């Protein structure tokens, strides 16, 4: 019964995480307000030359279920129709008009409507006048994508309900059997430490550094990659890396799609890496774990390095593994240099995030404070700095990517916002800025942790 309740709790937590991730994604997507515009001149009667855009043509857009504002400017009255996918097919095949929204005899006006579902929508305009009409139509999407919003709220609510119900059932059972509730936080009791530490013996004449280091690494893996941390990292990596828009359909330039959505990838990576490192360093200090570990003959340097190596390696391995799927999904050549360049740049930016979070954690020694400060600092830089600025992660990645693309393929990638190719100086600067700051902060943190930091 206890196991079932725990299973339900874990299931509820997973649902909660998925729902929250979707909610965050939905809120983030709502900040993007894409627009489209149509400018047409309707002549009446229609010209006689063969036109391939037959009178049944419909301008089609793939639209999500958001609010749509249509601003119409004409010099006379027109009829305007919005067709969903079914309506479009009906119009193209039979010429029957079945719009989801329509307005007749309208001139310059702004309309607001709600798109009912996600899909392809067609805009059709008719000129009922016996004269030439100039039409200027601008559509803009805003608001939340309702399907994503409902899904995320429903999943979050289900997760909350299941977690709460299973926790209540678990607590009730503990009360009935008079069993003390299991501590959710690892306390100061030495019995919470893993078994391998009980076997650890100090040999007076020979300290086995390597074995100690390996044991520390194993412990860090078990402690800080416990369920559901690794699972959350996998879900976030898959959802952010594999979902960005395909911006280039030419197979020769398919590598440019590696640039698409990179800012979203970095934003989530910053959040995950920052939280994980702060939890590991500052969290273990504030909970007293570090003090307890150091009461054993464990070297501070080994403890510091084991945390850094484990967390960085796992994060990079997960992201690199998911990135590798892009070779298949984008039909890339397995030896495409830009794929490996992308991996290198992602590794460097990840290293920088890890170094910054580590430095903040060892200085503040407070988990919540270090997470907040690193998130504000890194998110702020990422959002305020321009996409091609060397201050932001996206800017450094884009600069390096564009430079390598220019050198290898002779063209700038379509997704990069450069008017001219970045120079070798810019590319090297983007590379060495990341390496330089990372190394400096790493060395600073290491020296501070091993020689200066007081653990109370």
């Amino acid at each position, binding site marked *: 019964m206890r196991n079932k309740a725990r299973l339900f709790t*874990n299931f509820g937590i997973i649902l909660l995480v998925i729902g929250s991730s979707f909610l965050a994604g939905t809120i983030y997507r709502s900040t993007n307000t894409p627009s489209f515009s149509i400018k047409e001149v309707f002549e009446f009667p229609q010209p006689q030359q063969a036109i391939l855009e037959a009178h049944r043509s419909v301008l089609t857009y793939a639209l999500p279920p958001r609010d749509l504002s249509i601003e119409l400017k004409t010099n006379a009255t027109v009829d305007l129709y919005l067709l969903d996918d079914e309506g479009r097919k009906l119009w193209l095949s039979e010429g029957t008009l079945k719009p989801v929204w329509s307005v007749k005899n309208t001139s310059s006006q702004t309309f607001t409507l709600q798109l009912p579902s996600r899909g*392809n929508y067609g805009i059709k305009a008719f000129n009922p006048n016996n004269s030439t009409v100039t039409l200027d139509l601008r559509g803009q999407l805003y608001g939340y994508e309702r399907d994503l919003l409902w899904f995320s709220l429903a999943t979050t609510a289900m997760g909350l309900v299941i977690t709460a119900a299973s926790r209540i059932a678990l607590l009730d059972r503990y009360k009935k059997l008079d069993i003390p509730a299991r501590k959710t936080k690892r306390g100061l009791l030495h019995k919470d430490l893993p078994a391998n530490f009980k076997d650890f013996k100090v040999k007076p004449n020979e300290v086995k550094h390597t074995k100690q280091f390996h044991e520390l690494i194993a412990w860090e893996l078990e402690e800080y990659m416990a369920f559901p941390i690794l699972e959350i990292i996998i879900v976030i990596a898959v959802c952010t890396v594999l979902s960005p*828009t395909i911006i280039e359909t030419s197979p020769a330039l398919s590598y440019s799609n590696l640039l698409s959505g990179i800012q979203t990838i970095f934003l989530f990576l910053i959040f995950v890496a920052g939280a994980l490192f702060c939890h590991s360093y500052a969290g273990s200090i504030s909970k007293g774990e570090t003090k307890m570990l150091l009461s054993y003959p464990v070297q501070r340097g080994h403890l510091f390095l084991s945390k850094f190596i484990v967390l960085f390696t796992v994060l990079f391995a997960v992201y690199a593994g998911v990135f590798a799927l892009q070779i298949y999904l984008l039909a890339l050549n397995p030896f495409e240099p830009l794929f490996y360049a992308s991996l290198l740049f992602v590794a460097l930016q990840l290293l920088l995030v890890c170094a910054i979070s580590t430095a903040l954690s060892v200085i503040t020694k407070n988990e919540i404070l270090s997470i907040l400060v690193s998130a504000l600092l890194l998110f702020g830089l990422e959002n305020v700095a321009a996409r091609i600025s060397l201050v932001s992660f996206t800017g450094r990645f884009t600069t390096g990517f564009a430079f390598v693309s220019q050198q290898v393929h002779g063209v700038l990638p379509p997704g990069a916002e450069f008017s001219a190719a970045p120079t070798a100086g810019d590319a090297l600067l983007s590379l060495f800025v990341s390496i330089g700051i990372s190394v400096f902060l790493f060395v600073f943190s290491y020296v501070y942790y091993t020689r200066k930091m007081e653990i109370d």
Partner: protein
Amino acid sequence: MKRSSRFFVAIFLLGFSLLIVTGMRTNSAPHIMSFGNEEGGATAGWVMYPDFLMFPRDFRVDIRANNTVDVYILDEVAARQWNASGTLDAAWTYKDIKQGVFNEHAYSRGAYAILAYLPANATTAIKITLTFFSVEKDLLVASLAIIATDSIAMGISLLIGQKNKNIQKPK
């Protein structure tokens, strides 16, 4: 949580994430591609349009011309063969077409090209529109396969564990 259970949960979540991504990619992958000679392309004879990436989805081919044409959709190998030796081995063939709409399904991911034959003794205007819809089938199959295999494996390991527990329990 036991290591084996954790492994199964991690694999399940990997499959589930891929399933979510498959759904999200219906909007992030291209929907419509158009080819033709509206902007000053060739109007007679054999014409090969720029190659493009296609994913294993359902798509609709809309061919409109003011003359009878032949249209072929070639995969990467067939396109190379055509360029090298003129041998035609199309994945999809539409012969003697003036206007038509066809629903097809792409089975593999990769580069494709459109080849058209426009009548040699006339000036032909042609437009070929490919409209893509539905999910990428390979991703869908992969994610469902991972989830199914993992669920079966997890079920079997739970059953084996339960059986061993029953055997060890003293009667």
